């Protein structure tokens, strides 16, 4: 176990899944790696948490630095907004697009997997998600932007060390959705949820 400095902020993962069982599972898995976890049950709640106000009309976005998210892990099949639609919205928002997104699905559909990866998902996990999957998240979390005070060691149970650059968070402009964006239908061709 590495040295942990008192001022260190634990890495924060936003987990999105409509299943309470799967939320509990993913939360537990992530917490074994000492990540801080916020679990929500829908894509729209995820976007709200990320600072996207007035989700339906995409009228305004205000990033909340208090609630910095280092990784988003989302289920694919959810009522309302699918994980794919959530991924897309995140990748199209200037202030959110650099947050790594991972998709989980109980269905092994190659077309679905490639579509998600093409849209910018870092990884695609087949459910049930296990420890060996969550271990794969470490490199994504070490690359993402976070508030740091110089070099520090990764908080994890293994002996690997991740060194963080002393990045300063970008002061991203407030993202405004145009009418065009609003009208763009984000229906996934994959309706087999």
């Amino acid at each position: 176990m590495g040295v942990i400095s008192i001022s260190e902020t634990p890495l924060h993962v936003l987990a999105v899944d409509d299943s309470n069982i799967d939320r509990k599972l993913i939360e537990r898995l992530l917490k074994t790696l000492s990540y801080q976890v916020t679990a929500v049950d829908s894509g729209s709640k995820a976007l709200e948490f990320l600072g996207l106000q007035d989700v339906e009309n995409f009228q305004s976005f205000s990033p909340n630095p208090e609630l910095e998210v280092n990784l988003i892990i989302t289920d694919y099949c959810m009522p309302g907004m699918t994980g794919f639609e959530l991924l897309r919205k995140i990748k199209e928002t200037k202030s959110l697009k650099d947050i790594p997104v991972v998709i989980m699905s109980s269905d092994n559909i190659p077309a679905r997997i490639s579509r998600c990866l093409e849209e910018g998902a870092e990884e695609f996990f087949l459910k049930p998600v296990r420890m060996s999957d969550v271990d794969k998240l470490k490199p994504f979390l070490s690359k993402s932007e976070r508030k740091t005070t110089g070099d520090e060691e990764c908080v994890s149970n293994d002996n690997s060390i991740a060194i963080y650059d002393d990045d300063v968070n970008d002061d991203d402009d407030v993202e405004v959705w145009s009418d065009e964006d609003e009208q763009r239908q984000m229906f996934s061709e994959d309706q087999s949820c």
Partner: protein
Amino acid sequence: MAAVSQLQRQFVDYTTSLYNEEYLDDQFTQLQKLQDESNPDFVVEVVSLFFEDSEKLLNNLATALQQTSVDYKQVDSHVHQFKGSSSSIGAKRVTNVCVHFRNFCEEKNLDGCLRCLQQVKHEYILVRTKLEALFRLEQQILQAGGSVPVME
């Protein structure tokens, strides 16, 4: 201490049979690995959620299949959920029935769906009974001062 080792032996044998008969699969082992001193009741908590969920889903399925005009998309949605939750706790036989069930939904085969509903209910009750017995055995071991064997 003879009582404890006997209970532990019983536990190992019972668990082994559950895996051999596919009531449980490796995912259940994964759940047990996530249990520790800081999360001592993790498995029971997750399995309890599964029991609650399943009872609701079975009721919803029965209702949906009783409609004069069955909404197969709705039925499929419930089965999909059931498939997911059973798979997440390692209740293999329940998951297997759900796979067949989804096929019948796709075919809009009412008879097939009704048969699968009976089957999935049956498998659910079986696994619930067995898990409850397993948890009771664990409690007996702990109360006798022993530790629960870790299955690999």
